[in-house]
């Protein structure tokens, strides 16, 4: 085929998008985790993340995190333009280290929760949430 200017531009844009976006997002997820954990190892026990397998709308996705004995739980959405979602810090009068909220997901992606335990260790849980695109703009 003849390579027109338009084709070249499109190909260039596609390559740039493919190359840059995922890398940038992944890097900032790693940065956010490193900032929270100080680079400590992540276990996988003692933390539960509950999220729908499929969300009917990415605007309002119900999420619950629980990590008995944690002092804080950080939530990340790996595929959002800014992966930070929020951090729950549990005080002395928290009856459990569990909380629910509703979050925005820009598309199908992994939701990640990192718990900071009272002993200084960290645990990680993640789940993929598929975000559907409605049939109608209605």
């Amino acid at each position, binding site marked *: 085929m003849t390579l027109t200017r338009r084709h070249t531009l499109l190909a260039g844009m596609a390559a740039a998008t493919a190359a840059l976006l995922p890398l940038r997002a992944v890097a900032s997820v790693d940065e956010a985790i490193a900032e929270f954990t100080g680079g400590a190892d992540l276990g996988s026990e003692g933390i539960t993340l509950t999220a*729908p*397998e*499929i*969300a*009917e*709308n990415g*605007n*309002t*996705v*119900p999420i619950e995190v629980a990590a008995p004995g944690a002092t804080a739980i950080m939530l990340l959405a790996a595929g959002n333009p800014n992966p930070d979602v929020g951090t729950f810090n549990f005080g002395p009068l928290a009856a459990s280290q569990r909380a629910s909220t509703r979050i925005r997901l820009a598309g199908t992606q992994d939701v990640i929760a990192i718990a900071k335990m009272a002993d200084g260790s960290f645990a990680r849980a993640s789940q993929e949430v*598929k975000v*559907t*695109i*409605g*049939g*109608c*703009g*209605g």
Partner: protein
Amino acid sequence: MTRAFAPGLTTALTAVALAGFTGAAAAGPGPDEDQLVINGEIEIVTEAEAPAHMEYVDTVYSGWRFRSDETQAVQMDDFDNPAMIWVENAMEDWETVEGAAGESCASCHGDVEELRGVRAVYPKWNEEAGEVRTLEMQINDCRETRMEAEPWKYSGGDMINMTALIASVSRGMPVNVAIDGPAQSTWEQGQELYYTRFGQLELSCANCHEDNYGMMIRADHLSQGQINGFPTYRLKNTKLNSVHARFRGCIRDTRAHTFAEGSPEFVALELYVASRGNGLSVEGPSVRN
């Protein structure tokens, strides 16, 4: 009435578009089997025998039955349901004196509970005015005639909040709009509109909500397009949506010029669509995707 059937090609294309990409969705065909009880006490009928006037459907289902468990759950508790924020705002309007007559809604109606049952029978023939009126038209008539206040915009914030409040006190009661007598000609006009194909996509209400409910339209689980749950809080735009705003959205999506909110066409269509839900419970303000 006679149904306008589609030219073959359009039908085939529509069927492919509607049924084609079901792979990614968890929901199976048709409504689910869940039961809706709000606040652990208001039992909602979400499935009923279709009214006698419906020729092509045996059972009617609330749109709630087509939503995911997570979306359904938000409607099951008034605290979780964000629509109730605006219901509370409407409570303040209910008590607020406005207009030259020095009246509020409460001055005449007392407690809003006094209007229990009203949502269930609207749109309704108004003898004095000689027209079928939606709840919004009746509210504005109260504002202009009784309160001597400015009417609200048909789908404006104040209006939709008030319709949510008035619907909320009728939750659990069966929708029961009259379609005979003086309302009949308006109802027939609404039926005509329901089966009329609009727009470049040549889709009628029936093409999606009667012929294909329960199927996936891309990743969306098509409901019967019932309006017993209106106004509805949509996760999509995180606000209350009126029936006419929804009609407008649907017709726009067929790539047609649409009717205006509060137009005679939409009043007629609302009466007809409401009558397709006769027997389902009033559910508004509901929660949908």
